[in-house]
């Protein structure tokens, strides 16, 4: 009598499939938005909205220059002391006042880029940010850099998550696809 191959119970097959699925697919996307430039915030928000559309739990952690796009567009001077105030004069916040990392030409570059984007029906950073909020993307401003650069919660747009620190960001990043932009 030969011993027939024993079929695996359905549960074991299921467990195998599950392990395989977990190995090949990260369910989370975490982007560290460090740069506040138009040409880096744009892909950041494109990837964040796409991640949410793919069913991934998506988080964007905004730190350093990356905080300035979150400043309300009508807020002009921020900060407590002259250094922080000077910073906001030299580096205006708001997603409608961003600079290009190259070919900025004193603002002519971003104006042309925005014009081209409209022509090609590409959503603006402002529209993408609204969309990200609607889709449940977590937008976390970095508390430490907010203090350092003199940005208060009321200087920033609504719909953000509570400001947090590096630990929150790294805890979120466990088992996630991570990008530093």
């Amino acid at each position, binding site marked *: 009598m030969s011993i027939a191959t024993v079929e695996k119970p359905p549960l074991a097959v299921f467990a195998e*499939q599950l392990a395989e699925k977990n190995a090949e697919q990260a369910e989370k996307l975490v982007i560290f938005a460090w740069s506040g430039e138009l040409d880096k915030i744009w892909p950041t928000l494109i990837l964040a909205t*796409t991640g*949410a*559309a*793919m*069913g991934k739990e998506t988080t964007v952690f905004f730190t350093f220059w990356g905080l300035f796009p979150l400043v309300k567009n009508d807020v002009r001077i921020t900060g407590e002391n002259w250094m922080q105030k000077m910073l906001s004069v030299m580096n205006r916040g708001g997603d409608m006042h961003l600079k290009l990392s190259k070919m900025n030409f004193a603002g002519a570059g971003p104006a042309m880029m925005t014009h081209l984007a409209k022509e090609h*029906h590409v*959503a603006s950073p402002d529209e993408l940010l609204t969309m990200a909020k609607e889709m449940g993307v977590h937008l976390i401003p970095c508390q430490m850099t907010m203090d350092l650069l003199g940005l208060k919660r009321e200087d920033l747009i609504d719909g953000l998550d509570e400001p947090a620190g590096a630990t929150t960001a790294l805890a979120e990043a466990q088992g996630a696809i991570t990008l530093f932009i």
Partner: protein
Amino acid sequence: MNLTVAMSLNLKGMSCPLPIVKTAKAMKGLTPGQLVEVLATDPGSVPDFKAWSRATGNALVEAREEAGVFHFILKKKEEGVLT
């Protein structure tokens, strides 16, 4: 192919990532098994819908081009089905 679609989305003229983002948002309102028809003109949406289907488990039932317009039919995945 003659299919009954629950919803039709006209996303012509939109660029990446809007066709995918808008479709994903709209499909949240469907029940599993229902079909959605998407019309788009972004050539990048052809590989993107394939990838999105693979990644999310919502089947791409049909993908064809007609006079510069891409027609996609997607099927909302059943709950609990492994992708």
